[in-house]
């Protein structure tokens, strides 16, 4: 019988891998059948860490968070943001960080509430040496800068970095915590964008020249992202 692992929230008595009844304590991983897993999850006796993280992120204090729309209007994003207590500002001519934690978001990049919340959780301030400043997802696990942008953009990146075998980031949704370093990085990205026709190349060049505490997320983070 296929077995899955759930994490015990309460004391659970279940058969271990050898069929012997065993007592599992809160925090233990419990091997159970899929049917038993559903029962335990529905009754609150166990949890899946992923789901627990999502629920925690959605209930976090987001009072210092906001979304800076890079295109589109607040009205157009109402449905996605419904229930999420964050401020939203529309683009005003330059990339900036108007909030302590800002999601720079192009609305044509589909996103769900839980992704927004989890992104903010990634960049929360948990202390000087334990906090990311920027979170961004790769567009594709094998996509390289050599595969995007025209010759002129690729030439600029080669001149700046010396290489195009760099992963491409999904720049439609970038979470940033405001610090001196991230402000420099965002200003650099904005400057690159003024002279660029490929924001992904502009992002890579700005990143290379302005280090930040970057949490790179795998492509397909939290499901399929579509442009």
């Amino acid at each position, binding site marked *: 019988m296929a077995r899955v692992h759930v994490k015990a929230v309460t004391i659970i008595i279940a058969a271990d891998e050898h069929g012997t009844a065993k007592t599992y304590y809160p925090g233990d991983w419990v091997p159970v059948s899929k049917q038993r897993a559903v029962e335990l999850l529905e009754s609150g006796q166990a949890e899946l860490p992923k789901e627990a993280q999502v629920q925690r992120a959605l209930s976090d204090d987001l009072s210092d968070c906001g979304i800076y729309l890079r295109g589109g209007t607040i009205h157009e994003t109402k449905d996605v943001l419904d229930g999420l207590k964050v401020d939203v500002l529309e683009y005003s001519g330059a990339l900036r960080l108007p909030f302590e934690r800002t999601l720079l978001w192009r609305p044509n990049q589909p996103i769900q509430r839980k992704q927004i919340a*989890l992104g903010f959780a990634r960049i929360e301030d948990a202390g000087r*040496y334990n906090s990311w400043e920027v979170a961004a997802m790769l567009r594709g696990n094998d996509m390289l800068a050599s595969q995007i942008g025209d010759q002129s953009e690729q030439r600029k990146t080669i001149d700046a970095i010396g290489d195009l075998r760099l992963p491409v980031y999904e720049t439609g949704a970038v979470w940033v915590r405001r610090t001196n370093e991230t402000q420099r990085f965002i200003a650099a990205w904005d400057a690159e964008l003024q002279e660029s026709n490929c924001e992904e190349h502009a992002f890579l060049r700005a*990143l290379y020249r302005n*280090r930040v505490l*970057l949490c*790179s997320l795998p492509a397909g983070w939290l499901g399929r992202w579509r442009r």
Partner: protein
Amino acid sequence: MSKGVLYVAYGQQARQEARLSAESLYKMHPSWPVRVISDVADIGWAPSTEWADLGTPGRWAKVNLDALSPWDQTLFLDADTRVYDSLHVGFAYLDRGWDMVIVPSIPQHDEMLGHLSEAERLETISECRIDSMQLNTGVMWFRRSYRMGMLFREWRTQWLQHKDKDQGALMRALERRKAYVAILGRPYNGGAVVAHRFGMARG
């Protein structure tokens, strides 16, 4: 700023693989110094450091590379790699203040960490943020910095929990200690720049 290349090679097969890797490296970077961390004091073909092993072979040395490297900036290569193109870009990122330059592993999301014991895999999934990125430590550049020192210390602490593979331990270490980590594309580990003959170094 001094820089060089480190290998870890325990056992005759690993030492032979490291030698072949270094020969491929020399074709692209003949002036880069190489040092091998090994189970013998003198491997004959490159400067070497004898370092007592612990747990899964070679991993204790890997999580101590910061202490074992004599340089300000280091490129670590797995013994079973072959270099086919320039590796300058990693050092270029370090020159810009990035602490570590590394390539993501192929398995991610639900497929990641499949090479760990079930206990360590579940522990890592439980402790790390949802869908954290698994990084492949077979090709990595790092520099001496306060943050990198803290990350290595935490990496050792995490690795000592299970004394097995190192990538799960690195994920758990990054959950606790952040450094300036830059990502390169797959050609740099298992691709056209650095080929990776996974497992060939094991005896």
